[in-house]
């Protein structure tokens, strides 16, 4: 069901009837339709990109505060107020006098007013002000939000160093390869049915192809920085990403098979009009998607390429200054994109939970439908980020590289194939296309034996049972040779091929 707020429709209609009137007498008149289309697309793309990019800082803030709170500490508390307060009494003097065009006076006045109103009070409260320099009398809106802004902006003024014997061209190209391919993903992520930058026909294939480019950039970075740590980090990340690319593809193939389309927006429409989100139809697929996405963006359980412990910083050890800032941002954009893709494929995009039932209620239903799709998508993405990526980061340890690869090839791949088969069976036998309804109430396509919604309910319960079965660990004292253990009796390196 289309979202009520259609940004694209609004902008395209205004530009279509505004531009021809503006270009009435000018020679460009006959091509005014193309110009209107161009300007409208430019506006929509910019709005969507800025929304996605600046909600990126929310992701950084959620992560830093959640990890800090879990570590039992306060985490970053830099407040907006620290811009004009200066360092406990020491300020930068009358810097606004150096401003040209007489702009010094108003900015100086603004600074004084802010300091008087929201700054440190006076000598009497010097120590109290010094302690809560982070907030004004203990209150601060978004405490710590500006810490990430400061971290990002500081990298702009750092010196850019290139290691002497590094392969300079590839050393410079690698970060751009990673950052550009990451930003391209944001192009196809729709915020709601009417708010997206582009909607290519096969957007699922496009997303996976773009996700596949970054590993090359990572390997280039690792190889070109002429440092043994980065070389091992680069090789590890290349191996890990290829190992987890295939289960990711198969999982998205099963989503496409289930929804019948390769387009993200159509698969969201399918989820609503069929009545059940994919999460309940293919919980195994959802789990696989999250696991492979965590490995794809190299976060903690699969953090081996930038393993703090033995590889210093992994493949980005030699990057300083803004290149490191961009790589740091690119890693978070990829994580954010992963959360968005999970929301669209498994949590029904901009549709509200139980939208079918609640929209029936006369008064409350209409209010419920008034919530804009973009807000719903953002909140879902942030919750997925908090509950999956950040929670895994502060509670799990790192798996070793060979264990990651073994887990990827031996366990995730067969499960992904099983999921594709299941999706095929669901689509062919358990799906009833006649019940599809594209109304606000949504359809009831997954009934079985007369009981509405029986198929998703049974699947979810079945997979939860399997999950609990595997949850309790086997008796620890008994076995020591864990299944992932590759300990060679004869130390490696002593085996010379060809000599039996």
């Amino acid at each position, binding site marked *: 069901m289309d979202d009520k707020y259609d940004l694209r429709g609004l902008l395209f209609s205004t530009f279509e009837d505004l531009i021809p009137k503006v270009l009435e007498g000018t020679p460009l008149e006959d091509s005014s339709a193309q110009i209107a289309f161009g300007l409208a697309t430019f506006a929509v793309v910019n709005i969507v990109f800025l929304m996605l990019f600046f909600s990126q800082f929310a992701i950084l803030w959620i992560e830093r505060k959640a990890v800090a709170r879990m570590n039992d*500490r306060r985490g970053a508390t830099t407040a907006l107020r620290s811009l004009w307060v200066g360092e406990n009494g020491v300020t930068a003097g009358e810097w606004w006098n150096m401003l040209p065009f007489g702009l010094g006076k108003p900015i100086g006045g603004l600074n004084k007013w802010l300091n008087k109103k929201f700054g440190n009070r006076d000598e009497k409260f010097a120590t109290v002000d010094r302690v809560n320099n982070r907030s004004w009398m203990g209150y601060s809106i978004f405490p710590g939000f500006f810490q990430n802004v400061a971290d990002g902006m500081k990298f702009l003024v750092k010196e850019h160093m290139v290691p002497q014997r590094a392969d300079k061209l590839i050393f410079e190209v690698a970060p751009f390869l990673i950052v550009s391919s990451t930003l391209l993903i944001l192009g196809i992520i729709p915020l709601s049915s009417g708010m997206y930058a582009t909607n290519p026909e096969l957007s699922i294939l496009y997303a996976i192809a773009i996700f596949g480019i970054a590993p090359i950039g990572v390997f280039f970075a690792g190889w070109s920085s002429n440092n043994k740590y980065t070389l091992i980090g680069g090789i590890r990340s290349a191996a890990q990403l290829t190992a987890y690319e295939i289960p990711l593809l198969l999982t998205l193939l099963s989503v496409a098979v289930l929804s019948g389309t390769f387009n993200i927006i159509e698969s969201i429409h399918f989820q609503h009009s069929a009545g059940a989100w994919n999460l309940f139809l293919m919980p195994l697929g959802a789990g696989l998607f999250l696991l492979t996405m965590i490995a794809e963006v190299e976060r903690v359980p699969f953090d081996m390429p930038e393993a703090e412990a033995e590889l210093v910083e992994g493949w980005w050890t030699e990057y300083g200054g803004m290149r490191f800032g961009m790589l740091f941002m690119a890693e978070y954009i990829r994580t954010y994109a992963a959360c968005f893709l999970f929301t669209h494929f498994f949590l029904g995009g901009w549709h509200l939970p139980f939208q079918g039932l609640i929209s029936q209620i006369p008064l409350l239903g209409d209010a419920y439908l008034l919530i804009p799709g973009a807000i719903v998508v953002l909140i879902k993405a942030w919750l997925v980020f908090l509950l999956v990526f950040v929670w895994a980061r502060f509670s799990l340890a790192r798996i070793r590289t060979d264990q990651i690869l073994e887990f990827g090839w031996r366990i995730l791949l067969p499960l992904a194939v099983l999921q594709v088969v299941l999706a095929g069976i669901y689509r062919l036998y358990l799906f009833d296309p006649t019940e599809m309804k594209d109304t606000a109430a949504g359809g009831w396509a997954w009934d079985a034996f007369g009981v509405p919604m029986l198929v998703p309910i049974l699947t979810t319960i079945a997979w939860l049972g399997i999950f609990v079965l595997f949850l309790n660990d086997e008796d620890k004292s008994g076995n020591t040779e864990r299944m992932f253990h590759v300990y060679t009796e004869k130390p490696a*390196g002593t085996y010379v091929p060809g000599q039996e």
Partner: protein
Amino acid sequence: MAQMWITMGPQHPMTHGLWTLRVKVDGETVIDTEAELGYIHRGVEKICEARDFTQVTPYCDRLCYVSAMTWANSYIYAAEDLLEADVPERAEYIRLISAELQRLASHLMWLGAFGPDIGNLTLMTWCMRDREMFLDLLQELGGSRMHYNYPRIGGVKRDIPIGFADRMIAKVKLFEKRIEEYEMMLDESTIWLVRLQGVGYCNAEEMVEAGVSGPNVRAAGVNYDVRWAHPYSVYDEVDWEPAVEKPTSVKGADCYDRYRVRIEEMRQSCRMVLDAIEKIPGGKNTNYASGDEMIYTKAPTRAPEGATGFSNYECTRGASQFYIEGGGEGRGKKPYRLSIRSPMFITIPFVAKTMIGYKVADIPAIMGSFDPCIGETDR
């Protein structure tokens, strides 16, 4: 596959302190290793030859900076052997309590550093938060957070403060519940078990042959402990038993056993401290003046020419030993020769050799499980 030497240099997150581990790597597998120490060698043995016997204690605090109290006690026993000083009963109890509290703080620092080695960053903050509890207690005794200069030749500097006993009991009881929280977070997580079990095997005789001691040997199944084998202080009157682990493979103890032994040792220390505070002669809520004969007996300050003093003490990381020869400058007020045996100085080359055959990612796991402290290694 190309074999290359990687230098895990002095500044490296894995090395707890400054030392270099050169690793020959074939792909991901370690073929050969070489340890290089001496980055913070500061010649404590040479400086102590120009210090009086009581002035040497601060240097021994700063040897292994994470378990300062145990090292100061170790030196004091050697000095008492040299100067023939005897120690009152209550002072021995206070030394036991302060040493065991320091052992708890040191094991917590180890667990806090071991977590990030394996990748679990939350462990660092949790363990350091609990360590602050014990630092507060030791601060009441010694006066500062990390280096206390607390034991004296013939007793202790000052008695335990009035409310110390109740605060300590409350904090140790709270910590015993905290250990369950750690175990729930770590032993239940398959990733933690997969990274630690079956990694870093070394059997008991191989370790003793190489001079390894302390919890690392008790992880291989023998409950040998200097506290009962060469007894000192009042460990025989206090209720405890050495923590020992059953190795699950014929190849000896792996990283998981060493981790389990230290968790068990934390419990033993808690049990020991709670029992010792009840049995302390002179009552737990009394506070004697600092020179009182209940906690300090005057000891001679000069050592004759040929006299020697030796002490064998169970520090948190192994058996630390001091050997002092009397008759130095100032007519014997200063030691002629002070020799310090650091358990880690011999364990680190041995551990470097046990890493051969495992993966590069196992290096921090194996190294961290032996709890290296470079301050004492380089002296």
